[in-house]
């Protein structure tokens, strides 16, 4: 592996939904400014794992975690960690575009506003910067006060990315960000991910093998709550070590 710093790390991570053992002893380290793809069949725990990085599972009744998740070397499941502070560092984009039923501008600056930032100039600047980063600025700059719900699905998803970028995170979690979009919008999102990895550490869950191949540097294959294989994407896609990985990526499962 290259000499980049380790940004995210899971150590002996176990997760449970009540009695169900959802993640089994996961150990993984992800480098800074890299794209890591999580692949695996539905219910394999990849989304659950992704959500441990910003503690989105905390709201689920009966969910608990053992082990450590390290962000820049600090355990985010420590008692004194405030989740709102954590989430300023770890942004998230969801499967279905979920813009708030507000204007485009309000969507982008929401994260800043809840931090108490009221200065209009600051908000406007941040909005433009993140919309540009999300490759949406040119399409919406004249309609910032239009409802976000009037945008197309692909635009909505890029708006959600801009919204996440506005609070300047260092990590971006993406939970199947293109699975609800048409191929053109998907291609745009993928290009965007490729650009964004110059500045952010990105973890993406995807069901689309080609997508994992196109956008990611490393790929992790999960099966039944286990991390079966973690390797460079090229290595995994040309010569996977585990038979289960082979069967999954060649579409011969079960």
């Amino acid at each position, binding site marked *: 592996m290259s000499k980049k710093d380790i940004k995210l790390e899971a150590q002996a991570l176990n997760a449970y939904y009540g009695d169900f053992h959802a993640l089994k002893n996961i150990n993984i380290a992800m480098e800074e400014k890299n794209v890591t793809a999580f692949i695996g069949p539905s219910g394999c725990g990849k989304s659950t794992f992704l959500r441990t990085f910003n503690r989105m599972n905390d709201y689920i009744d009966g969910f608990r975690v053992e082990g450590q998740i390290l962000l820049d070397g600090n355990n985010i499941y420590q008692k004194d960690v405030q989740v709102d502070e954590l989430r300023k560092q770890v942004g998230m984009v969801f499967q*279905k575009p979920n813009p708030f039923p507000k204007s485009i501008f309000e969507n982008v600056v929401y994260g800043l506003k809840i931090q108490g930032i009221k200065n209009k100039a600051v908000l406007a600047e941040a909005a433009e910067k993140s919309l540009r980063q999300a490759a949406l600025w040119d399409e919406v700059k004249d309609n910032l006060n239009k409802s976000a719900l009037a945008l197309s699905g692909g635009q909505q998803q890029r708006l959600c990315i801009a919204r996440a970028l506005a609070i300047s995170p260092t990590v971006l979690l993406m939970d199947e960000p293109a699975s609800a979009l048409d191929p053109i919008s998907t291609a745009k999102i993928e290009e965007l991910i490729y650009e964004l990895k110059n500045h952010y550490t990105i973890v993406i869950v995807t069901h689309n093998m080609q997508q994992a191949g196109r956008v990611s540097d490393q790929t992790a294959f999960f099966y039944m709550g286990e991390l079966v294989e973690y390797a460079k994407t090229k290595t995994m896609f040309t010569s996977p070590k585990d038979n289960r990985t082979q069967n999954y990526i060649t579409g011969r499962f079960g």
Partner: protein
Amino acid sequence: MTNSEKNRLKDKAFQVFGIFCTFIGLVVLAIFLFDIVIEGVKRIDWDFLTSLPSRRASRAGILTAWVGTLWILVLTTLIAFPLGVAAGVYLEEYGKKNRLSSFLEINIANLAGVPSIIYGLLGLEIFVRQMRLGGSLLAGALTLSLLILPIIIVTTREAIKSVPRSIRDGSFALGASKWQTVWFQVLPASFGGILTGIILALSRAVGEAAPLIVIGALAYVPFTPSSPMDEFTVLPIQIFNWTSRPQEAFLNNAAAAIIVLLIITFMLNGIAVYLRNRQQRKIKW
């Protein structure tokens, strides 16, 4: 006759029966409205709305009654709205899914089904006697608030539930607290639904006579109330009072007052429908 022919016949028969059932309610309502309007419309004029009650039917008006109703409406809203919405928000957003919460839920559902007269007795004991509010507007409004609280809680919860999980996730993921998420996202998005529920609850409260009679609202109040501690009457009580008189003229008065009461309820319902439609147009998840 083959089997499929039989089935088709059954289908037709049920269709006819269904239409009949649907129209029964409408027809009864139409007859009722027609009857009331015939009887009462000639009594409605400006004087009728602005006169105090009187022993003589031709001079009697409903000023104190509708002003009382208005007072009750406003006070009830002020009391029930924050209580009901806050309780709904707590149960839906904060309450853990444990035994206590299911106990609360069952009881709120039960409360919604309790006859209104029982609320009257409760109000009489607590507000009128224990809190020494007497037969005042405040006691009446508090009693009616109790009556509609379960409805408001349930509709608030339903409205909040209809806000998709993804909106909350989006807010939380940006570092928002639960309170910020509820205040900035969930409540604005569900406000139309909540308002609709409140208005429907109020339109029920407007029509209630029984609990108010129990707590001591009077049929004859020769002045319009000017503070929440004043004695009062409301339209349903006035109507009840007039219909129990033997004179024909008072029955006409009652019909006229019923028209006024119906207009108020229809208006409230109309506003509710309007708000709901607007909400549905504005937000498509």
